[in-house]
């Protein structure tokens, strides 16, 4: 923790100082050339003026220009949203110029709620935009992963396994995803290809997204997809990232093998008797024994040949063969991304066609993921008054097999690392059927608890086939110069086919399969339609009004069906008709609808004071009809202080913004019928169906839950736009929450659904942007973000000061454990008379799951055509529970178990004395919640030796709680790009060409062993890998 903190601080300080340091500019000269942007893409329309004259030009569509000018003249390159550059012309007749965006673009527009574009200056709330170019080179499996560390206030927990969704939270809650103005609530992070993304604008607070209604309550990620420009361009972008080695991989002991209490001999794979019940508490390996042919101790093993005469297994040497099991089994992963897109357009319209494929090869053999997209988008000005824009994307995600990840015999690490002694070499398991029992019995050293990992990879197949179609159509009709009518409808559809093929003899938790085939299909239709009337007018010189009046309808229909066999008659024949026993299945259909009416009004005064008011009324189907209509408002104010006050010369700009909003949500859970008290279907007993009444009591008069948010922010620019500091404080009060109030089970219910409890979410967000170096040849750009977040319970229900296991005033992200041992006030274990620690009957808080702060730093250094990017991000504080650690101590694979006590236990000796005390007298008195009221206990050192193996099996090594500090810092990305110079490309058909070497996930500093804390949870996680590869981007 300490270490990680100090590291974070150092980084912060270095970049802060760098940002403030004054750097002088250098100069140069003449005169054909090309002007490119920070990504080396040509910029058309850049204005070039010879200083002090009227002569000048603008760049053409390819960013090229020619100009008659003498050496010694000064040229001024300017383009909206970019820092103006002055360059002195030398004798050289070729001049390539790169322009950089002003660190935050004041005059630039961002896309806000409902797709309305607004000037950054006028916003009363925090937004942060990320350019789509950033995701193109160093590819992540999906777009959301790429946002890690980029946005102040957005936490992305990256998972390590193939095709697992990252967890995202913006100010502590999951934000809405909006694609081209259309909410996409299916939370599919895989369906938008990064090549098609123009930008992602993050609307951080409810104020920003209030116009989306309840679904926008927690902010929004506004994804804007690319459109065509004028002229015709073709772009090819190709990335290949290899996964050459591990960032984190569990390290296991290689001294002892399978077995229990130091003994092992294979009998029949049942795990019973001398097989040691599946434990890895077996004998020391590689022990010499001169009496055997091999010179090592020999025992019967699973791969022993049988003596043809006696039928007995012939002993084999008990040696460590499997020290490299992880590396031998897992293959090197790969992410390969290819995109081609064509854009073309005239003054009246344009289109863009794009095709992409992402192929990902998993670490586990025979696992992969394909993700293919086609999209078409375009706009056309039908008449002077009517214009239209539309886009549609078809996306297919498909894999015949992706790995299962939670703890259990379906997890690869479980079978490969945790529960396999190194006396087994995984390579010997490659032929995974027992000879003569193909299709019926897998070959493994233990057939009761574990799966042969190869058997699992090649026979237990989890298919996933999802078709997404999403898009929108928009019409804008100019009724009069002030009045515009916009109609837009958008669609998010998907159909998902999931199948699991489970072979005979496959081990699941607690049982061995007779073979099964599971089918799960689901489909969703999600439609959002808006009709908006816009009125925009200036009154006099100083006043402006922009008002919207809108109506919206949202409709979601979801259906799912599952059907399962009960045993397979013919092995490996995966068809429901092959079921041995009756099929079972279920299905569900849900529909929900929201109708809304809303308005917004932006009033500006002198282009320096901006007031925004919004209001929205929803009618929802997810609450009883009597309570289903509700209204909520928001107000925002932005003032450019620097326009009124005389600021010091280095301080260019200062804006204060503040906003308040209220958003109500009438949705209780993902099931839109949650407000209806009804029976659930119960077990079907031999053809008799049944019903049971659920334990959650629904109050029929529930109302929508509400969040009041306010935020205040300060936006500052210094040194001619080379330094920007933006600070925000936000506070959200969640009240009238639709909560499941836990009640005494003796009341017949476990909870009651009520409005109640109150939570406060709050935090700071800092964005810091700087251009510490900026010359025509060398630039260094730094973006840093930093944020804090916490949520506390401020009010309980029914006037009590407790809510579940929380007390009013406490943080809600506490990790509670009810499986701890009793400890003295000093924290020492209290040992019982049997030598083992005594269980604590009370629940204890073990820490907080949220970090104290999160941060990210992105750097880009450009020298001529070469660009170097590197970024760090991390989290400080927070607690993570490591199931990997717990199970390694429990099962006997943890390297810490290699010690004398273990050898003694193998010899049947009890020599381990737990570090703790025994109570010799006195008494302790607890209050109702386990807090000590009085304590007169006296202690003596525990002296009772016990069996070391029994200690670990019973207490999971009570010296540790397996809760760890989750702080970490990651070198997220390192990339070097080279833009081929224009001179070189002139003779080719290419307009631009860029090659990059990229690496993601390269270094990790953390205090947890064996796992990557980035994922936020550890359920026996897949090893974390480095990604290293290259990108080629061509335009012609």
């Amino acid at each position, binding site marked *: 923790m300490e270490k990680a903190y100090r590291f974070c601080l150092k980084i912060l300080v270095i970049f802060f100082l760098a940002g403030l340091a004054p750097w002088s500019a250098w100069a140069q000269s003449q005169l054909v050339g090309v002007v490119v942007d920070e990504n080396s893409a040509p910029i058309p329309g850049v204005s070039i003026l010879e200083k002090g004259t009227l002569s000048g030009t603008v760049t053409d569509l390819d960013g090229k220009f020619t100009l008659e000018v003498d050496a010694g003249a000064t040229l001024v390159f300017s383009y909206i949203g970019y820092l103006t550059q002055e360059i002195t012309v030398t004798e050289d007749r070729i001049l390539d110029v790169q322009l950089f965006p002003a660190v935050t673009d004041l005059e630039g527009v961002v896309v806000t709620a409902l797709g309305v574009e607004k000037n950054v200056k006028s916003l009363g709330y925090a937004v942060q935009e990320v350019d789509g170019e950033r995701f193109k080179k160093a590819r992540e499996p999906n777009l959301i992963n790429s946002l890690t560390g980029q946005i102040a206030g957005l936490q992305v927990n990256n998972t390590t396994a193939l095709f697992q969704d990252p967890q995202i939270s913006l100010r502590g809650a999951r934000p809405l995803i909006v694609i081209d103005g259309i909410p996409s609530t299916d939370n599919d992070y895989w369906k938008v290809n990064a090549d098609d993304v123009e930008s992602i604008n993050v609307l951080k607070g409810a104020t920003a997204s209030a116009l989306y209604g309840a679904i926008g309550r927690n902010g929004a990620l506004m994804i804007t997809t690319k459109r065509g420009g004028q002229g015709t361009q073709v772009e090819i972008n190709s990335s290949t990232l290899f996964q050459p080695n591990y960032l984190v991989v569990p390290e296991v002991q290689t001294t002892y093998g399978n077995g229990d209490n130091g003994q092992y001999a294979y009998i029949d794979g049942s795990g019973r008797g001398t097989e040691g019940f599946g434990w890895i508490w077996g004998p020391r390996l590689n022990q010499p024994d001169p009496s055997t042919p091999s010179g090592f101790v020999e025992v019967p093993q699973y791969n022993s040949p049988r003596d043809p005469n006696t039928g007995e297994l012939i002993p084999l040497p008990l040696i460590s063969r499997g020290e490299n099991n992880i590396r031998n089994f897992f293959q090197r992963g790969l992410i390969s991304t290819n995109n081609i897109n064509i854009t073309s357009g005239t003054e009246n319209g344009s289109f863009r066609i794009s095709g992409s494929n992402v192929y990902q090869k998993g670490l586990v053999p025979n696992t992969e993921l394909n993700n293919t997209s086609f999209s078409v988008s375009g706009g056309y000005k039908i008449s002077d008054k009517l214009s239209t824009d539309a886009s549609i994307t078809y996306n297919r995600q498909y894999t015949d097999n992706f790995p299962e990840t939670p703890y259990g015999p379906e997890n690869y690490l479980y079978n490969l690392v945790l529960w396999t002694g190194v006396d087994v070499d995984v390579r010997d398991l490659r032929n995974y059927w027992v000879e003569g029992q193909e299709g019926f019995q897998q070959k493994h050293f233990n057939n009761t608890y574990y799966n042969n990992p190869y058997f699992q990879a090649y026979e237990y197949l989890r298919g996933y086939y999802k078709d997404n179609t999403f898009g929108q159509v928009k019409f804008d009709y100019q009724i009069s110069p002030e009045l515009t009518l916009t109609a837009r409808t958008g669609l998010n559809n998907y159909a998902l086919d999931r199948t699991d093929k489970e072979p005979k003899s496959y081990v699941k938790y607690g049982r061995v399969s007779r073979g099964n085939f599971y089918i799960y299909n689901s489909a969703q239709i999600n439609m959002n339609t808006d009709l908006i009337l816009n009125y925009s007018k200036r009154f006099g010189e100083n006043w402006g009004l922009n008002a919207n009046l809108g109506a919206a309808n949202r409709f979601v229909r979801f259906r799912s069906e599952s059907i399962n066999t009960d045993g397979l008659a013919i092995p490996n024949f995966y068809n429901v008709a092959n079921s041995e026993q009756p099929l079972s299945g279920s299905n569900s259909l849900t529909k929900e609808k929201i109708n809304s009416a809303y308005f917004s009004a932006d009033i500006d005064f002198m282009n320096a004071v901006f007031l925004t008011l919004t209001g929205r009324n929803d009618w929802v189907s997810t609450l009883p009809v009597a309570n289903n209509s509700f209204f909520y408002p928001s107000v925002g104010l932005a003032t450019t202080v620097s326009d009124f006050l005389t600021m010091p010369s280095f301080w260019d700009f200062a804006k204060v913004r503040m906003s308040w909003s209220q958003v109500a949500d009438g949705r209780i859970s993902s099931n839109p019928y949650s407000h209806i008290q009804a029976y659930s279907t119960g077990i079907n007993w031999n053809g008799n169906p049944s019903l049971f009444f659920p334990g959650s009591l629904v109050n029929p008069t529930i109302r929508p839950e509400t969040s009041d948010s306010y935020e205040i922010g300060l936006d500052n620019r210094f040194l001619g736009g080379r330094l920007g500091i933006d600070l925000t404080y936000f506070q959200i009060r969640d009240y009238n929450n639709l909560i499941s109030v836990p009640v005494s089970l003796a009341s017949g219910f476990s909870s009651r659904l009520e409005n109640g409890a109150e939570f406060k979410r709050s935090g700071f967000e800092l964005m810091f942007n700087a251009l510490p170096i900026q010359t025509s040849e060398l630039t260094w750009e730094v973006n840093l973000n930093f944020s804090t977040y916490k949520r506390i319970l401020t009010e309980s229900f029914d006037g009590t000061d407790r809510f579940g296991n929380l007390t009013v005033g406490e943080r809600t992200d506490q990790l509670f454990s009810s499986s701890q041992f009793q400890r003295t006030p000093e924290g020492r274990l209290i040992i019982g008379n049997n030598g083992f620690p005594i269980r604590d009957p009370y629940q204890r808080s073990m820490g907080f799951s949220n970090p104290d702060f999160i941060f990210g730093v992105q750097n880009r250094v450009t020298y001529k055509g070469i660009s170097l990017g590197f970024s760090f991000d991390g989290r400080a504080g927070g607690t993570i529970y490591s199931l990997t650690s717990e199970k390694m101590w429990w099962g006997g694979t943890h390297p810490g178990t290699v010690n004398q006590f273990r050898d003694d236990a193998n010899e049947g000796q009890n020599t381990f004395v737990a570090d703790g005390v025994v109570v010799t007298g006195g008494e302790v008195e607890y209050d109702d919640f386990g807090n000590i009221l009085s304590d007169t206990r006296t202690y003596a050192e525990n002296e009772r030796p016990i069996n070391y193996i029994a200690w670990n099996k*019973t207490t999971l090594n009570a010296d540790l709680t397996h809760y760890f500090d989750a702080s970490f810092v990651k070198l997220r990305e390192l990339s070097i790009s080279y833009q081929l110079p224009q001179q070189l490309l002139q003779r080719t058909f290419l307009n631009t060409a860029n090659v990059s070497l990229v690496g993601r996930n390269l270094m990790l500093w953390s205090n947890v062993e064996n796992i990557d804390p980035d994922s936020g949870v550890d359920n026996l996680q897949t090893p974390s890998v480095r990604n290293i590869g290259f990108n080629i981007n061509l335009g012609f």
Partner: protein
Amino acid sequence: MKRTSKIYFLGLFVAFLSSCESFEDLQLDPNRPVQAEPSLILTQIETNAFSSVSLGAALASRQLIYTNSLSENQYYGWQRASFNDYNQLRQVSKLAEEADRKDNGSYRALALFFEANYLVELSQFFGDIPASEAVLGGSGNFSPIYDPQERVYLSVLEKLEEANSFLGPESGEILGDIIFNGDILKWKKLINSFHLRVLMSLSIKENNVSLAVADRFDAIYSNPTSYPIMTSNQDNGALVYVDIEGNRYPTFNSNELRTAYYMEKSFIDRLKSLNDPRLFVYADKETNGRNLDDFDPTAYSGLGGADALSTNTNLLLEGVGSPIDSRYHSDPVNQPSLLMGYAELEFIIAEAAIRNWISADPRVHYENGIRASMEFNGVSPKDTEAYLSQESVQLGDSDALERLLTEKHTAFFMNTGWEPFFDQRRTGIPEFSLSEEIINPSGIPKRWMYPQSEIQLNLSNLNEALDRQFGGDDDINGVPWILKP
């Protein structure tokens, strides 16, 4: 663009805005019913109430031992138990409600019986429990008071009396009945037999006047017309397992039962010393005996329930120690699970006879009980009679209770939940081994602590119950009312 097409395009959007169903239509959940036939609720209750196979009980009752870790049941280190039975009591109250709606007295009677069943189970675990105010959350009571155990039992006896009287040829058809297929007489037999079990569980309270257990027992036993009781294994309150997903024997395919549960030493030694043929259907041969004949008792041995975990695992690694018979994990149907069986009833009657609550010959009922148990476990009548003919098995006068309750304990193996433990707690028979390895310093606990959730959600009522019973402490060694003479 023509005016008509503008209108058309506007009209299209208005159509979208007012699309689909009305809000009223969307208040109907197509996936869940709001009303239920009582038969559908009954099926669910039965699958729970009659499912009684408990490995925990077998560990705590010195029938099995566990080797994967220090079991809190085996080494008597348990602390809290759960109030999950109240989830079932909610179903029972729904059954009663739907029975009223249908005006069906039979379902009403069954609801009373199941209510009694769950209240007894809860009270056996904890002592005082919420009963009179329990399961009233629907009418707004979320913190029910705890009733003294005595009051719980008195109300249970009343409910059982009432349940029997409600049931008759005219009381209404019972559907969805996976236990007795609607046979009302069998239900009456089960209810009255269960009534006798409850009375016997109060034997320590023999002298309590308001309970008058002996009189009540005799009133039922001696009036079979009004109070029919079970007369054979056909009358067992038994859940029969089926080889269908979710309907299989609960430990079928259990990896742990296959490898981590073994027979307890005192139990195996008893079976061996009495030449009990149930040895061969309860246990499998130990590793060392795998080449011996299946019916050779020397191929079987047990491991000490109070011995150290490492001692037991070391013995196993040496090939000593019988696992449980493979049918318990490899036969998807195996044998039924009992809420209450005929064998148990016969042992209860024998005990009542020994205690002079009724006039009957304890030997007859004792032997009936053994025969029923043998039959239940598939032992042939010939082997059964051979067993009964042994002097060591016959019921003497001096140690009648000891012999009887030991046989009852043997018969309870893997079929009737925690009854063997509760019986032992009531009578001390058979003796359960203790040692330094036992976690609870006071040995065998007398009860379980109340669930943590009650501290959080019903504290004042909980504290009142603790003050009343145990001087304010929630302690597994606290002696509940039912165990105080």
